[in-house]
């Protein structure tokens, strides 16, 4: 069941926006015709494989590839020796920054392997089986070192060190001894000590989460053709083709103009397909194999062992409220596992943790910590879920201690326009209170909860959203359609949500737009599909394109009618002058006689991207014998600003909930004491299946974003933020046990219930 509550007065003025046209790529995707990266087959193509480290932490003493090279059918073998030395340089990757030297070392290890599955060498052969067999013949001598597998142990002074040159960035100053703490950040406002003195109720708790994976169903893949003239073409599964071009150019020290990246259809990303893994390796293999195209696809166990995950974390939260229920002070310490190289989303976690609330006294410390696990990548609202699990559990406990309804407590303390977030920014118009009101008035929250061992939980979530650079170009076709090129990879229906914004401006149906995802040589620079930015920013680019097309078409109409431009009106796709009129299609058929083709392009970099909030309600039944949590009912409420394509807004909400449920109840990386990942299959890394979930109800709130022509706010990320806290709070109401560790799997719940019984 879905509901759409708009507080936007312009709700019904749109002809296309807010409707649900059939997506343009629908037929391709239900017939198996859509071309994903692994579907490509080029003449003379070779197949690649990666040799990976069996150790979590070791020095590489030597690498012998001679047997692999001599293996029949092998055409090339590459190691880090084939990579140029790259200087340390920080690159913006969207949803986080990365040091390109670390990125290079992550692609192929040089002197040290830092996690189980760290890539060491690449092989290209005439088929994938031979490539794998040859890779197994590579001999590496290691000096095996003690792995560091837990964030707080990694922070200790006597911990083994991952990167010998790592010095802590301590609030902007470099430390003077090696450490696994890459950085310590701090945000504060007011006087937290004094705030706690004024509090009538204080709750202080610790929370633990394990690494979890994005879990996209399509494994990473890449194909490259390195030409004798030095021109390179890469076909791959990526959230952003321009980002691939930049990273490959930096890692291989090649000008970007030598590289064309063709983004294939992508089988899910969720943040995990922004950084490159295979792309530089297949380029090297193509060059070394006599310029033959080389395709490589990761196995699922490699995907789990060596790509993706988001941080495991330790978060301590202390919050106090006065007797009236006003939050008096809040303090948090967040330590996030970055994996093998710096760059955990702890900064985002610090921003998220108290973001929904108006807090005058607060102190937040964040630590970015290296451990011998894969380099973490963005994962849907990166860092946010870990933080909200902690804060929203404490908020629930505070409201309980105060005898207040948990939504009322949030309404009393909820942030609104003009309030300052602890980490600095002051909110413009936001929709948190509207979201909470809708939750409180929802059929779900008003329904009684029946049955023993049942409980209802509530939690909120915040996400910043992002703007970034987007380009688009369009041409009017003589049959009244418009061809549209954007650089935004379509992961979840954005071809259509973008096309709809152009169609709206031109007064024509969404079906009259032909949207194409273009490669890096065919459209202007466009950042990747991340940060909940694509419908917002690329939608804005096509809005600008539409304005230009309209101006040009008005000029053509003026030519045909032999009148002045300002005499012509354009309404709902019809050009009007005196008693004459022409439809968009009629005018489009007369471009040749009025001066030839009509094209337009635009580039934008919007800054006012409008953060968003969510409130989730969940009912659970907990089996006291087995500890299994069954979700009886789930409702997600979220401010979308303006829902351009409501079916797909709701689908983002439902998908975020499902991932959050998996994180909350089942998913975790399990390592043995030597740092070997022991659950690297989709059987043992257990993601939710259809039988684990009920229907997921949604309520879309529309509090228009003043920073977008149609009021859009990003919608993709925030729905993963509340679920673990909402479930923890529901489990508490069902059992009386407060779970502070994810996942809340049956074994952990039974253990807690047994402890409760004594």
């Amino acid at each position, binding site marked *: 069941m879905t509901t759409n509550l708009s507080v936007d007065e312009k709700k019904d003025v749109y002809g296309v926006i807010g409707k*649900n046209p*059939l*997506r343009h*790529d*629908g*037929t*391709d*995707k*239900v*017939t*198996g*015709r*859509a*071309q*994903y990266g*692994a*579907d490509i*087959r080029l003449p003379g193509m070779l197949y690649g494989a990666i040799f990976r480290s069996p150790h979590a932490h070791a020095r590489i003493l030597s690498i012998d590839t001679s047997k692999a090279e001599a293996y*029949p*059918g092998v055409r090339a073998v590459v190691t880090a020796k084939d990579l140029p030395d790259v200087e340390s340089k920080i690159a913006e990757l969207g949803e986080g920054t990365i040091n390109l030297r670390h990125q290079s070392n992550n692609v192929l290890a040089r002197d040290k392997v830092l996690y189980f599955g760290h890539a060491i060498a690449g092989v290209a052969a005439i088929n994938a*089986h031979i490539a794998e067999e040859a890779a197994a013949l590579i001999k590496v001598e290691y000096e095996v070192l003690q792995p560091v597998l837990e964030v707080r142990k990694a922070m200790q002074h006597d911990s083994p060190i991952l990167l010998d040159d790592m010095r802590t960035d301590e609030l902007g100053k470099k430390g003077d001894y090696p450490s696994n703490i890459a950085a310590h950040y701090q945000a504060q406002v007011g006087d937290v000590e004094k705030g706690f003195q004024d509090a009538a109720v204080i709750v202080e708790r610790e929370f633990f989460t394990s690494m979890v994976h*994005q*879990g*996209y*169903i*399509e*494994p990473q893949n890449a194909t490259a053709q390195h030409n004798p003239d030095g021109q390179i073409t890469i076909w791959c599964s990526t959230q952003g083709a321009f980002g691939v071009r930049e990273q490959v150019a930096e890692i291989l020290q090649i000008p970007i103009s030598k590289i064309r990246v063709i983004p294939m*259809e*992508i*089988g*899910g*990303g*969720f943040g995990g397909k922004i950084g490159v893994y295979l792309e530089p390796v297949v380029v090297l293999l193509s060059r070394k194999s006599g310029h033959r195209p080389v395709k490589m*696809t990761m*196995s*699922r166990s490699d995907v789990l062992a060596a790509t993706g995950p988001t941080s495991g974390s330790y978060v301590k939260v202390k919050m106090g409220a006065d007797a009236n229920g006003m939050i008096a002070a809040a303090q948090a310490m967040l330590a996030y596992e970055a994996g093998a190289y710096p760059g955990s989303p702890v900064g985002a976690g610090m921003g998220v943790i108290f973001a929904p609330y108006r807090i005058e006294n607060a102190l937040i410390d964040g630590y970015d910590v290296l451990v011998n696990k894969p380099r973490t990548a963005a994962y849907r609202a990166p860092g946010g879920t870990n933080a909200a699990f902690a804060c929203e559990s404490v908020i629930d406990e505070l409201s309980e201690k105060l005898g207040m309804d948990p939504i009322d407590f949030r309404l009393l303390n909820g942030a609104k326009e003009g309030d300052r977030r602890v980490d600095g920014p002051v909110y413009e118009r936001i929709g948190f209170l509207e979201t909470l009101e809708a939750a409180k008035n929802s059929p779900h929250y008003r329904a009684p909860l029946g049955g023993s061992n049942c409980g209802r939980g509530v939690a909120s979530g915040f996400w910043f959203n992002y703007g970034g650079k987007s380009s688009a170009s369009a041409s009017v076709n003589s049959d009244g359609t418009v061809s549209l090129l954007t650089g935004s990879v379509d*992961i*979840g*229906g954005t071809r259509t949500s973008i096309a709809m914004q152009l169609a709206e401006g031109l007064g024509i149906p969404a079906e009259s737009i032909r949207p194409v995802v273009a490669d890096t040589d065919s459209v202007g620079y466009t950042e990747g599909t991340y940060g909940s930015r694509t419908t917002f920013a690329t939608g804005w680019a096509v809005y600008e394109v539409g304005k230009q097309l309209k101006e040009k078409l008005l000029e053509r109409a003026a030519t045909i009618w032999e009148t002045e431009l300002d005499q012509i009106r354009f309404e709902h796709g019809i050009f009007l002058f005196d008693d004459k009129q022409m439809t968009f299609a009629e005018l489009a058929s007369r471009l040749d006689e009025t001066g030839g083709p009509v094209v337009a392009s635009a580039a934008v970099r919007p800054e006012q991207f409008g953060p968003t909030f969510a409130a989730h309600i969940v009912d659970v039944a907990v089996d006291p014998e087995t500890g299994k949590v069954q979700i009886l009912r789930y409702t997600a409420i979220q401010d979308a600003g303006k829902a351009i394509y409501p*079916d*797909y807004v*709701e*689908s*983002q909400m*439902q*998908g975020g*909930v*499902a*991932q959050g449920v998996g994180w909350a109840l089942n998913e975790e990386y399990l390592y043995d004491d030597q740092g070997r990942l022991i659950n690297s*299959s*989709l*059987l043992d890394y257990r*993601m*939710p*299946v*259809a*039988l684990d*979930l009920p*229907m*997921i109800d949604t309520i879309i709130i529309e509090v228009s974003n003043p920073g977008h022509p149609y009021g859009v706010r990003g919608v993709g990320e925030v729905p993963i933020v509340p679920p673990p806290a909402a479930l923890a709070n529901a489990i508490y109401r069902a059992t009386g046990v407060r779970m502070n560790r994810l996942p809340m799997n049956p074994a952990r719940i039974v253990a807690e219930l047994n402890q409760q019984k004594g």
Partner: protein
Amino acid sequence: MNKKIRVQATINGEEFEFLCEPRQSLLEVLRETLGLTGAKEGCNNGNCGACNVILDGALVNSCLVLAVEIDGCNVTTIEGIATPQGLHPLQQKFIAHAALQCGFCTPGFIVASKALLDQIPNPSENEVREWLAGNLCRCTGYDRIVRAVMDAAQSQEKTL
């Protein structure tokens, strides 16, 4: 190198004859030898369902079937679900209900759902969820997939 074996099979109603190594999975041969790339490789060990095909009436993960095993068999892949007249009701309903985001798991879900409706023409929500529990989707939360399958079942009933 392994000696190749000759296999004959009916795939999507057409007679095929191909050579394959004994170690090659049906999935690999469909994708790499026959160019039928609609079946996807998500895990290559039977956990995700993205490579689902119907083999002599039974739903299977094509990554767990050796290509040599299909000699003399009848195989339906996602490429064989639509008819010359147009999309299958399941395909239409998946689009209409927005039951896909990235679309990578979609071929597997549609093939699995076809096998379900062949056996149980009017399944309950729980029967749909149980049947599809072998197919992983990471984008949708399954809500819209379940609705699409039930709606397709109803529209098929009407046309019978």
